[in-house]
């Protein structure tokens, strides 16, 4: 049985649940907004992990779960788990405990989990993740994190164009550091180290890896960040493509090294033919790509998570 955990109307989770229904794969939905009515136990004894979930008045042993697709949001952000006037006052503590136990289990569960929080943390430091990406054999853009304006000027001399973006997992729009950068603007850097990267001219390719399945989508646009092309009044054309075998293998190897069996890898095919990797998204919003290209990514998720089912 597959366990889907999160908010089931959220598109990536909704598509995976729909795929499980279409293929008649047994599954259970742990709807976070129903957390006040869900119970869980987790046992660790002699190196074995067991326990049970109580959902929809059903008791499901954790050992019955063949795989988990988790898109769990912070329970503190859910209105249903907050204390309410006139409601039972312990709901928030109880829901926080439930989520803590669930997260603990997802880290140690013996079945496949897409993805475990410990592994997902590599994306919390993009320069750290870049080092892991290099180790997997991909080229990466030259990168500088600094609060020194002079260091940026020197870096800019070495590279024709630069972009800047967050170094952490906080989602940010990639911007180009324009040629009109003023000393006053660069002086603001002294407030906080900022990540700059060599701009790579080429074609964006998003690769979704699910186990050993690879789905590549080419995004053609004139915008610096194709995900936000609409902000620059630019269009983006999405097309499913087949990667060269060596690059596809490298993507699978990278996902294994990062212990992220389901991930969204941001690549760029440079004009000289080199494949650059920018980052690996550990919780990819693949629905956007599936809806544009018809790639069966949700089916692959369901196949991966049900592979070990009896």
């Amino acid at each position, binding site marked *: 049985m597959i366990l889907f955990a999160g908010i089931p109307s959220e598109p990536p989770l909704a598509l995976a649940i729909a795929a499980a229904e279409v293929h008649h794969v047994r599954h259970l939905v742990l709807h976070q907004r129903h957390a006040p009515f*869900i119970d869980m136990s987790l046992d660790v004894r002699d190196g074995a992990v067991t326990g049970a979930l109580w959902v929809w008045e059903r008791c499901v042993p954790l050992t019955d779960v063949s795989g988990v697709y988790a898109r769990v949001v912070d329970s503190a952000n859910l209105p249903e788990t907050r204390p309410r006037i006139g409601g039972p006052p312990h709901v928030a503590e109880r829901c926080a*405990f439930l989520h803590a136990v669930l997260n603990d289990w997802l880290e140690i569960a013996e079945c496949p989990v897409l993805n475990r929080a410990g592994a997902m943390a590599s994306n919390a430091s993009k320069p750290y993740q870049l080092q892991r990406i290099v180790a997997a054999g991909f080229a990466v853009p030259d990168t500088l*994190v600094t609060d020194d304006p002079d260091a940026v000027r020197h870096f800019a001399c070495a590279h024709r164009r630069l972009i800047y973006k967050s170094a952490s997992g906080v989602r940010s729009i990639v911007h180009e550091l324009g040629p009109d950068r003023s000393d006053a603007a660069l002086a603001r850097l002294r407030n906080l180290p900022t990540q700059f990267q060599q701009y790579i001219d080429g074609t964006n390719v998003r690769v979704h890896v699910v186990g050993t399945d690879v789905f590549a989508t080419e995004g053609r646009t004139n915008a610096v960040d194709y995900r936000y092309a609409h902000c620059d009044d630019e269009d983006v054309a999405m097309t499913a493509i087949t990667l060269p075998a060596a690059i596809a293998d490298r993507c699978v190897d990278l996902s294994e090294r990062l212990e992220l069996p389901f991930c969204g890898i941001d690549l760029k095919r440079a004009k000289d033919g080199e494949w650059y990797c920018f980052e690996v998204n550990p919780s990819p919003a693949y629905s956007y790509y599936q809806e544009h290209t018809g790639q069966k990514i949700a089916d692959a998720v369901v196949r991966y998570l049900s592979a070990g089912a009896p």
Partner: protein
Amino acid sequence: MTLLVIADATEGTAARLTLVARRLGRAVRFIVPAELATGWSHRIEGRDVQTRLTLRDGTTIHDAVLSGVFNRLRGIPDTAVVRFKGADREYALTELHALVVSWLSSLCCPVMNRATPNALAGGAYSAARWQLLAHASGFDTTALRYTTSQRRFPAKGMVRADRVSAAHGWSPALELSGPATFGEPIGRRSASLLVVGETVWPEQMARQEAAPLAEPCRRLARAASVTLLRVHVTDSGAPAQPWRFAGADPMPAIFDEGPLRAIVDALGASGAAA
């Protein structure tokens, strides 16, 4: 070559380590986490990663001059980013965390303990994860149970291992039926072992008693990707395997000269004190 110590100014173990290193004539520099807020040039060019950190007093630290790092970073403190407020402050702390993780991970010299994206000082695992790692490393372990409902999932033969929440509205009935953590009863004797690299020091137990635990301790440290670890054990009452794993601390307080000297040696500093 310099041994870099990163810790709060009041962190006793870091202070004692610094004193021992200086007494041994080693070059050592102690910096507080707030000094990591500015002065960065962290450059990644393929496999080549180079970092230059300029401290408040103008001293520049290059990766190449570091013999090792004694890392007691629990986090970047708010005081490092007082110029920011609200959400901007949160963002600034998150960005600095990302930078420091990348820097500490890139160093070729020994780092005790090496940062992970989850924890600047490394070794951040749940109690359940430590139990599994300890079992896989050869320890006898106690059972753990977490439950959101003691009524639905009772824990027979186990004892309450947490403290009841004092939150408003918590009732005695809820204490008996609500969320709880249980463990197996532990023995009356407790002891610990301190792992520094491949060396294991018994604490509150005889060397002879500790000998069978040394290799499981080393395996546990390796499994947890740390080189400094205190392993807590409790007596099991079983003659064949008298000690059970009871917990682990990757940031142990250390008072004895022997382990402190071993850390200084592992971190490789030599030359005059700075």
